[in-house]
């Protein structure tokens, strides 16, 4: 079965799941938060959850939390709060629901300090997306440009870039990430840059190979004969043909970024418990599994496996490989 007869991307569960995780991750503070999206306090409007996207929002009007303040509002008051779809924050503790199993109030249950598991999962998606996406974008841009340049120019440029790729491929990846996370733990930027510097090689290799085989084709010679500039040949005639391969690489890199992020946080390296992450949640869940708190390890496990598998399936689809066309996901 080839790509043409296989199910289109928009009919696949994996594509929708990837979109969902991407959007939820990017806007995690708007999806699950203990502060409202929109509030009117004594006639003044505020948007605390939106503030959470870029900084620290106010915990509530006066010395109350938003939720307490909401319950004290009189029925005929013009003031109101509009909570996010999931009105629990990742760090919001509630002693009443300590290690509670899934219930109507907390769909996925609560952890050992009474934090809502679904809210932590949502913010864990945020950690993954905000780390993986910039790393893949930077690495992809750099790798595509260098690979295209090497493949198109050939000769000494090609040799140089190929050697550079070889050098970077030999880096012990996890070890490198480990000390990057340990040393720049609090700033995500350091980790993003280190990840990008490990990812660019895959893009560069793929693009270089593709351009190398394309540049001797007739249409390139014709275009050059017609006086089309080199830059235009590269960007308009050659690069559009490699986008699908770049997409495949991006999906694989995203999967390894997710694995790397959760591995690091599982090992307890990085920003720690303050930021929710799937790896850290799993570690906590494993500690409580012995006492029968299955919900603490099951949800992060499902999240990690589903998202990583989804990236792999998408990559296979983009490549038009027959292998996963029968996989239902």
């Amino acid at each position: 079965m080839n790509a043409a007869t296989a199910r289109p991307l928009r009919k696949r569960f994996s594509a929708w799941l990837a979109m969902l995780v991407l959007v939820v991750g990017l806007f995690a503070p708007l999806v699950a938060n203990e502060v409202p999206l929109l509030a009117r306090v004594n006639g003044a409007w505020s948007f605390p959850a939106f503030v959470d996207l870029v900084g620290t929002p106010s915990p509530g009007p006066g010395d109350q939390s938003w939720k307490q303040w909401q319950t004290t509002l009189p029925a005929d008051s013009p003031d109101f709060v509009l909570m996010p779809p999931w009105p629990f924050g990742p760090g919001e503790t509630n002693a009443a629901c300590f290690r509670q199993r899934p219930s109507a109030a907390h769909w996925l249950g609560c952890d050992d300090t009474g934090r809502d598991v679904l809210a932590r999962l949502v913010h864990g998606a945020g950690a993954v997306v905000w780390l993986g996406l910039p790393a893949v974008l930077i690495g992809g841009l750099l790798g595509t440009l260098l690979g295209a340049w090497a493949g198109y120019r050939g000769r000494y440029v090609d040799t140089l870039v190929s050697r550079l790729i070889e050098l970077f491929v030999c880096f012990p990846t996890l070890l490198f990430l480990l000390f990057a996370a340990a040393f720049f733990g609090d700033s995500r930027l350091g980790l993003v840059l280190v990840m990008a510097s490990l990812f660019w090689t895959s893009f560069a290799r793929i693009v270089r190979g593709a351009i190398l085989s394309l540049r001797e084709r007739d249409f390139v010679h014709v275009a050059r004969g017609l006086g089309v500039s080199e830059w235009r040949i590269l960007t308009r005639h050659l690069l559009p043909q490699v986008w699908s391969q770049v997409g495949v690489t991006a999906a694989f890199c995203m999967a390894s970024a997710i694995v790397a992020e959760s591995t690091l946080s599982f090992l307890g390296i990085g920003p720690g418990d303050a930021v929710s992450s799937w790896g850290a949640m799993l570690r906590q869940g494993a500690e409580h599994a012995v006492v029968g708190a299955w919900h603490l390890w099951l949800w992060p496990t499902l999240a990690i496996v589903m998202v990583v598998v989804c990236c792999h399936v998408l990559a296979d689809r983009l490549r038009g490989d027959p292998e996963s066309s029968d996989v239902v996901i």
Partner: protein
Amino acid sequence: MKRWLLVRLLWIVVTLLGITFVTFVVVDQAPVDRAELAIARGAGERAFADAGAREAAILQLRIRYGMVDPVTLEPAPVWRRYWSWLCNAATLRFGGPHDDHEALWRRLARALPVTMWIGGLSLLVGLGLGVALGVWLGLRMASRRARVVSSVLLVIAGIPEFLAATLLLLAFSSAWLQWLPASGLRSLGAENWTLPWQLFDFARHLVLPVLVMSTGPLVLVSRFVRDSVARAAQAPFVASMQALGIDSAIVRARLLRHGCAPVATLAGSLLPMLVGGSIVVENLFSLDGLGHLAFQAVTEQDQPMLMAIVVIGSVVTLAAFVISDVLHRVIDARVRLQ
């Protein structure tokens, strides 16, 4: 071939220089340096009269580690420190002139066999099972059973090592069944047992770590072999052999040689995978191997140990690249090394 090998070895040296330099610089960027950390760790034993005495002690350590020029008290530039590290490393002394190299090598020598047992067994299991499974799948690509197995492999590929290890530990040694030991390589008091029991005990301890570490290679190899065998089965020579009425066992043997040869090129990507995997697996199963040492070195910012492990890891990786190229040449006569 000889010239190729020579050029290749030269490049290995250059690559090693590049890797160690980048690692050195990154480790150097750590917000808290080694001297401060050493003082902070030893603070319980040695009380300082005041902040000045503490600063003096840190400075003394910095001079000892070669981080500060002893005459001008200026911080030494990173390239000069790298150069002095390199001069030491050339004689396999991974550290400053005042570090205890004997102790470092003793720790490495204790850790190496553990990692080699786990890694070697995982590689064997992953390669053996992976090739077998890949051939099985590749020869019946279209069958329903093969598709189900392929889908299962796809899901297994999505399970990170730490997750597999955690779930297996929960299932087989803590929460559910208590069948297998959770940590170490031998039980307490095992040295007094008879040899067969000691071996059995050793094997029991190896099951879970090897299972976790071999899944990565297994999935990679089997998917690779499956595609390669399926492609070989479509090759014209297979059809012509069949048309000539050659015995199907012979056809299959030719086809498999054709389809399995590229596995040799995979060795280059399997070893780095194991290097990464050993960090996670040894940490989770409390094995005192190289991965555990690496993790410890990162948390303690033990620069000489970290550099030693990076050198060992990259030498292994680079050697694997060369070996896989040579193997590919040996198996596939059409490949020319230039």
